[in-house]
């Protein structure tokens, strides 16, 4: 905690990748400890089922219908063709305006959703105002 305070608080620590690095270091340590047996994970590196038993258990996997994707795209296009484009645009502009200020954006967000603006369009509008977080890349 003292370390995070020294860095200027939790937000600063995240921006600089301190937390992410600490988590990743711990994940790496855990992986090596599981490998060496120092850290016991029942069913993974201790008391594991024999291969024979594994073979007996048959797993069935769900296979997604490849047409689902196209159907959803078609539906999205249909919604886009049928909605009131002016209302969508006005709401997105209003949302951006509200996002720049201090006001609660939720009522405006709900109004925007009701015009059938897509999540992508809403996200892009908010990104224009807030930008996106770029995680510092350290290994």
């Amino acid at each position, binding site marked *: 905690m003292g370390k995070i305070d020294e860095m200027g608080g939790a937000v600063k620590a995240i921006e600089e990748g301190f937390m992410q690095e600490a*988590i*990743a*270091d711990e*994940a*790496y340590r855990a*992986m*090596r400890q599981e*490998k060496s047996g120092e850290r016991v994970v029942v069913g*993974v590196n201790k008391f594991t089922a024999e291969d024979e038993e594994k073979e007996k258990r048959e*797993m069935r*996997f769900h296979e997604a219908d490849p047409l689902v994707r196209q159907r959803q795209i078609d539906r999205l296009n249909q919604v886009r063709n049928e909605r009131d484009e002016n209302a969508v645009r006005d709401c997105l502009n209003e949302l951006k305006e509200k996002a720049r200020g201090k006001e609660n954006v939720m009522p405006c967000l709900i109004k925007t959703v009701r015009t059938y603006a897509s999540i992508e369009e809403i996200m892009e509008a908010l990104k224009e105002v807030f930008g996106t977080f*770029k*995680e510092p*890349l350290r*290994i």
Partner: protein
Amino acid sequence: MNEGRKIRVLVAKAGLDGHDRGAKAIARLLRDAGIEVIYTGLHQTPEQIVNTAIQEDVNVIGLSILSGAHMGISGKILKLLKENKAQDILLVIGGTIIDRDIARLKDMGVAEVFPMGTDIDKIVSFFSAPYDRKM
């Protein structure tokens, strides 16, 4: 590529899959094994991954996928590598890949697949072996 020269690996995460614990742990594992590792960060498109791989002149793309989208994304990356005449860059996949898909991925041209539970020594030895695999 000359034997003995260090290989360079791009560890990549694609799409909306935000599970980077494994990717980062593997990046550290390879780094500690003396391999040059570059990490793309989250939410990359196949185009971004292939561009980075070419710009950074890597030998292998190590793609980590735990979202189930491995068939589509791998196909796109392989296609883009081909279009950019960069088929000498190997594609290796790690993550939650079921047995049935391992064979499918390899048929597509993926060089190796490391599903969940793979012994980490196996991964290190794959990347440490003399680099003579061509597709």
